[in-house]
């Protein structure tokens, strides 16, 4: 069986969608692309305001190490109070937040 081998598979074709030098905001409803300064240790999401500590796997591959905890806690407490004030939230009903 001479196998069709030259054509790219779906996975191989998707390789071109990879981006380097950026991270995705780890706030799941934001997920905005953040482009930190090369080598930066801290970054703030311009979309949602979350602040993160960064780690560089390689010079072109940054990764979010974790949130800046005090900022995280502050936003969390505020959000929880807001959510409690409205109604019992369930996944799927939070769209457009």
């Amino acid at each position, binding site marked *: 069986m001479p196998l069709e081998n030259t054509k790219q598979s779906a996975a191989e074709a998707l390789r071109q969608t990879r981006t380097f030098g950026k991270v995705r905001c780890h706030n799941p409803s934001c*997920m905005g692309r953040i482009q930190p300064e090369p080598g930066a240790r801290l970054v703030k999401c311009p979309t949602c305001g979350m602040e993160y500590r960064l780690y560089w796997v390689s010079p072109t591959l940054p990764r979010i190490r974790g949130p800046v905890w005090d900022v995280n806690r502050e936003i969390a407490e505020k*959000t929880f109070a807001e959510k409690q004030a409205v109604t019992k939230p369930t996944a799927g009903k939070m769209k457009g937040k």
Partner: protein
Amino acid sequence: MPLDRKIAHINLTTGDIDVKSIPLNVRKQFIGGRGLDAYLLYNYARKGVDPLGPENPLIISAGLLTATCASATARTHVMAKSPLTGLLGSTNMGGFFAPELAWAGFHHLVITGKADKPVYLFIHNGNIEIRDASGLWGKTTTDTQWAVREELGDDEVKSLVIGPAGENLVRFANVMTGIKNSGGRTGMGCVMGAKNLKAVAARGTLDIKIAHPMDALEYNKRFIDQITSAKVNQTQGTLGTPFIWGATNCWGGLRTRNFQYNQLEYADDIEPERLDEIATETIGPHHMTGCFACQVHCRAQYKIPSGPYAGKYDEGPEYTSLGAFGAEPGCTSAETVLTGNHLVNQFGMDNLETGSMIAWAMELYEEGILTEKHTDGLDLRFGNDAVLLEMVERICYRKGWLGDTLADGGIPAAEKIGKNSFDYLIQVKGMNNLHSDERATPALALNIATASRGSDHLRSRPAIDLYHLPEGVLRKIYGTPIPYDGPLSSEHTSYEGKAWMVFWQENCYMAVDCLGICKYHTTFLGATLPNFEDWPKVIYYNTGLEFTPEELWTVAERCNMIERMYNIREGLSRNDLKKGDTLNHRYFDEPCKRGAPDVIGMCIDREQFEKMLDEFYDYKGLDKNGKPKAATLKRLGLDREPSRLL
């Protein structure tokens, strides 16, 4: 060149050994590895068999591609009826055992009976020998392996072993190989212990023929490039699976303090980067290691930096050890995580189940359901590191009332503890959930609810659902090899199209488990990794077997269906909280109170969840109760099972 591979039926009671060739028509239907194991289990495990009795067949296998020129195909699969859940027992592990088993001449072993004294099997170039293991009984997992080598006088022997936990019939005991490669889920080590089988040792120098060697070699290069160029695998190769834990803790998907919170705050000491520093300090800059023929090298090596076990060498920790000894018990010390990881590896018990059971007991203690009387005086509060590690040992050796109770697994323990303790047990089908919180992610919730071996992320989790990929990308992935034009949502909190994604992943993961490929080499954590369109080439070049992507999909459906048929035969029903496709009430009615801002306060909507489950059943060809329709069985060629073809 015909593929001639062997299966051995071994009866430990009688000592009978029967070797057969695996017929190609069976290969075509179930491929190998987990799929063929499921076929064997359905055929050889009588309905209602005692999981700890001699009749329960213990099935050990290598994947179809294991030990061929296809990278990262080192997976060993083990199946039996689970002593933890009473349903499908199934576990998958990396390392070097499966290829050695293949070079020793076997791809599947079906072990029945029970030896009257401790034994181990030695499999060597087509021969199988049952040997005395009296001298090995009581040894830790690594000591057992080194002792087997010494006895056989061969350093290249690879063994799959149990530790003290398996001997003591801890219901979630591991099978293990190497330093830390574990088949952890569903208590397969307990089944080995019940059979008095301490180890299966393999050593082989037989050829595994490659159908088209030069094509296989070239394609392997292309396959590896695709895998190692993915960002996710570069990160994995630097930080190991803790990187997933770190990310999960950041976004708030981490099951913390037995599902009370979604995040372990201020956990800097156990962040993957910190663990990487410890590995660098204790081992050196090149401290990553890998399974057979894998270039991802996702496993860290380390020495415990401090405490009573300071200086001990181990590998990992993986995500689950960070969950078990970090977030679940509410501990934030690297020493605790690295020590706990070492203990479970040495004892041979599932870190995931161990951590979850202790965290559950901690919540029961804080709620007053368990008291100091039950704990023999231990102050079992969250965040008590010393008590956490003490409990690990008590479970392994069944010490004290609580150690012995927890060693029996969640549901029996809840029955023994009584009151409303079961309400706090975060389990599906009797097995604890991964240390992740799925209250904000319906797709992931559906995945754990329906996973065939009980709550589990490695059966059907569409992890990439969290990446908010553009719809076009999602369509490209989830629309092949079977066209799909229903809804697909990039929004992780949506219920739209998630049933299809879970169905697709279920087939994808089944296929890799049949082939013996590691899940980091397919559409699990990265969207650009190989799947159905890529595998026919690897299979053809290596084995000469011809499959189309669509045929592989159908095989995966068939194998998943036979697993489901097995579970139904053992009592699975849709809404049974202990044996069904449903979740603990906390998912539906207890919003998470503390953790990451975005997912705080979220819950799964019961009505939408049920609708999603209906859709999932529909894709699988099941009726509303989750039972296969007659037409589905006919379409998949399963209407005459059990067929006993090998």
